[in-house]
Each structure stands twice: as C-alpha cells, then as structure tokens.
C-alpha cells in the first residue's frame, strides 16, 4: 500500500491530469449539447458499424433464402406480365391459289422448354391440339429443320428433337436420298450424321443437305452442310458428317409444318399394308 502511495505521489502530475481531465470531460459532456449529441453519436456510430459488419456477414449466410424469395417474387411478377398469358391467335400463312393446291401450312410456335445436352432431347412449344397440331407433324425453324411432334396436349406440344437417338429424317444430297441421324457417339448439338449414301456418290465438303420431301417436311428445306466425308472400312456407305444449319441452343420460334395432304397419303398408304 505504501508503495502505491509513493508511486502516486511520484507521478502526481499525471494522476492529477487524469482527475481534472475526467472532471472537465464530465462537465463538457453533461453541459454542452453539441458534445453530448456527439458522444451519443460516436457511440452510436460504433454500435452501428458493428451491426453493419455483422449484417454484411449474415447477409451471405442468408443469400440462399433471399435468392429463393426473390425468385418467387420474380415468378409472381412474371405471372402478371402480358407475355405470361397464353396467346391464342393463330396465323397460318395460307396462300389461296386456284392453280396449285396448297399442301403445306405453317403454325408458328414459341419454344417454352428445350434441352440440347441430353442423349435424347425434347422441345416443348406453346401450341397444341387446339391450334391444329397433330402427332407426327414436322417442325422446322427459319434456318433448318427441328424435329417431329411427339405428343400433343390442348395447349402444348412436345417435339422429338432432331437431337434424339430415334429420330430419322430423310435427307437428300445431290439427289441421293439418305437418312439423317444424331447420336451414336456424336452428341454435339451442331452436328448430325448422314447415313445410307452409297459409296459411289461423289459428295464434297460444303455440299448442301436438304430434306427429300419423302417424309414430313417439304422437299428442299436446308438441313445443313457437309463438313466431313469418308468411307468406313468395309462399309458400302459413306460416312458423312453434317453441320446443322439450325442452331438449337438459340432457337426460340419454330414452325409446325401442317401437311394438308398427309391424311390422304396415309390413308392410301395404309391400304397397302392391309392388302
């Protein structure tokens, strides 16, 4: 205890300073509105900064749920948009020509869902049986062919895309008919393979591949251009790789080909089988 007193008396100036400074400070803060407000302010600032930091941190933790709620809100808002109401109007480009009989009409449709990276890809469009779409119709885009209508509901249809293992489309190159397939080791959405072109046909890189007119599509529609050609060992058919002209990844609008004469054709062809 004695040592403490000695210490204090030795450095009395410092302790006196502390005492008088504290007294003045108390007077200052208690009696001057500016400093009082300032003290509260600075302490508030301290607390506020701490809260802000913690908030910044917890924000990250809540990012997932915040995202979910935002996405839900977005969906709600989008549902209220004009675009989310089903557009029922159908424009079928039909040309009245008395000389020629119209064989094909086109129904424009917007893609609402699609896949391109699967082994078997499908596309959903916002047109269905109410708009005259039937199972088995061909689907084309402004650049090339897209696929075949697989299933139809009143308002929607699904398309078995060209990018599907089971899709076979009759294609012609230099007036030779082959079969266009996709898959079998090639899962690039930009490439397809043309089969069944005999060896003796001369095809060059860059040759145009079109639809043959034998199947669902009108003849002469562009499918793509040949990028690679060659002969597999021992095979009597050429192995042709085609760069598709349809860009499936950016596809938005498609045309459903309505073959007005397909019913008649099918009816006739089905007689062959029954006979």
């Amino acid at each position, binding site marked *: 205890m004695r040592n403490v007193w000695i210490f204090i008396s030795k450095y*009395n*100036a*410092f302790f*006196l*300073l502390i*005492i*008088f*400074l504290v*007294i*003045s*400070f*108390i*007077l*200052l*803060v*208690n*009696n*001057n509105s*500016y*400093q009082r407000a*300032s*003290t509260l302010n*600075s302490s508030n600032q301290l607390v506020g900064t701490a809260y802000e930091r913690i908030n910044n941190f917890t924000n990250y933790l809540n990012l997932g749920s915040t995202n979910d709620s935002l996405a839900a809100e977005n969906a709600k808002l989008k549902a209220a948009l004009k675009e989310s109401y089903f557009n029922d109007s159908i424009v079928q480009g039909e040309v009245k020509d008395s000389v020629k009989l119209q064989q094909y009409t086109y129904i424009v449709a917007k893609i609402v869902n699609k896949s391109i990276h699967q082994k078997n890809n499908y596309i959903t469009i916002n047109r269905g049986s109410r708009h005259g779409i039937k199972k088995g119709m061909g689907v084309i885009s402004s650049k090339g062919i897209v696929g075949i209508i697989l299933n139809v509901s009143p308002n929607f249809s699904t398309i078995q895309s060209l990018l599907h293992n089971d899709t076979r489309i009759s294609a012609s190159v230099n007036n030779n008919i082959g079969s266009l397939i996709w898959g079998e080791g090639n899962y690039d959405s930009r490439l397809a393979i043309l089969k069944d072109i005999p060896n003796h046909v001369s095809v060059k890189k860059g040759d145009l591949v079109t639809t043959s007119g034998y199947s669902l599509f009108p003849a002469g529609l562009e499918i793509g251009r040949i990028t690679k050609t060659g002969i597999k060992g021992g095979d009597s058919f050429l192995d042709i790789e085609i760069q598709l002209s349809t860009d499936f990844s950016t596809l938005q609008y498609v045309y459903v080909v309505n073959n007005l004469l397909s019913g008649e054709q099918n009816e006739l062809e089905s007689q062959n089988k029954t006979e």
Partner: protein
Amino acid sequence: MGRVILVNLIRFIVLIFLQVFLLKNMGYYNLAVPFLYILFILLLPFKIPNGLLFLLAFFTGLTVDVFYDTLGLNAAACSVLAFVRIIFISLTVQRDGFDNEPDPSLGIMGFRWFIFYAIILTFSHHLILFTFETFSFYEFGYTLLRVIFSSLFTVILMLLAEFIFFRKKMR
C-alpha cells in the same frame, strides 16, 4: 509570499477580463482565435505545488468556460496545459537553482527559453481545446490549421504582453 499572490490575483483578473470582454470578439474568421488567459497559468511561480497548479488551471479554464458557455472545454485544455507545464519545467529548469521564488517570465528566463515555453504550452492547450470543441477527427486537417494559427496569434499576444510589462531581473 503575499506579494506573489496579489500579483497573480491581479494578473488573473486582468487576463480573464481581457479574454472574455475583448479577445472573445477578436479572431480571424474562426481560424485564428486568441486565448491569452493561459498566460496566467504560464506565469505562475516555479515553486507552486502540482496540486495547486492543477486546481488553479482547472478553475481558470472553468471561469473562461462560464463566459464562453462551453463548460469543461477550457478546463480540460488547461488541465492538459498544467500537465505539459510540469513536464516542460522539470525537463528544462533546475528548481533548486533559485533563491527568491522566480516566475517563468520573459524578463527572468530569457527570450529563447520563454518563446519555446510559450509555443509548446500554447500549442498543447489549443490542440486539446480545438479537438474537444470539434469532438471528432473528421476534417482534422482544418482543426490542426486552426490550432496552428490560433497558437501563433496567442503567442504573439503573450510576447506583446510580456514586453509591455518587461522587468529585467538577472537570475
């Protein structure tokens, strides 16, 4: 002894009077504001006990505060001033070398020592005063500028006062 108290009392009254009635209205755009009253604390005798020095400094500051409506502000600055004064004097002056209770005035201590003493003490006082007045380190550069200009102003006034009441006394 009695004479010392009387002289300091008169000095106190005169300086406070000057400060609150004349110098309070003086200043250069709030940038250079003189606080001459601290000359009273500067000129207190060397042999004053620390406790009494602090008490006097505190009440001098408080008196000015009462007139300035800034209770505690000048008192705090003067407390710091007293502390700096104790340190400065203990570093530069041998207390035992005096025979008849001298004051730390210009005439006795010489010009060089006095101006150094005045500048250091005034600067510390003004630094505390203006910092506490602003009460934040926001725009500290401006506060520092005020401190420097005000210190210059105060020191010049101090020198003027000291030369007016110049008493040549040899140590």
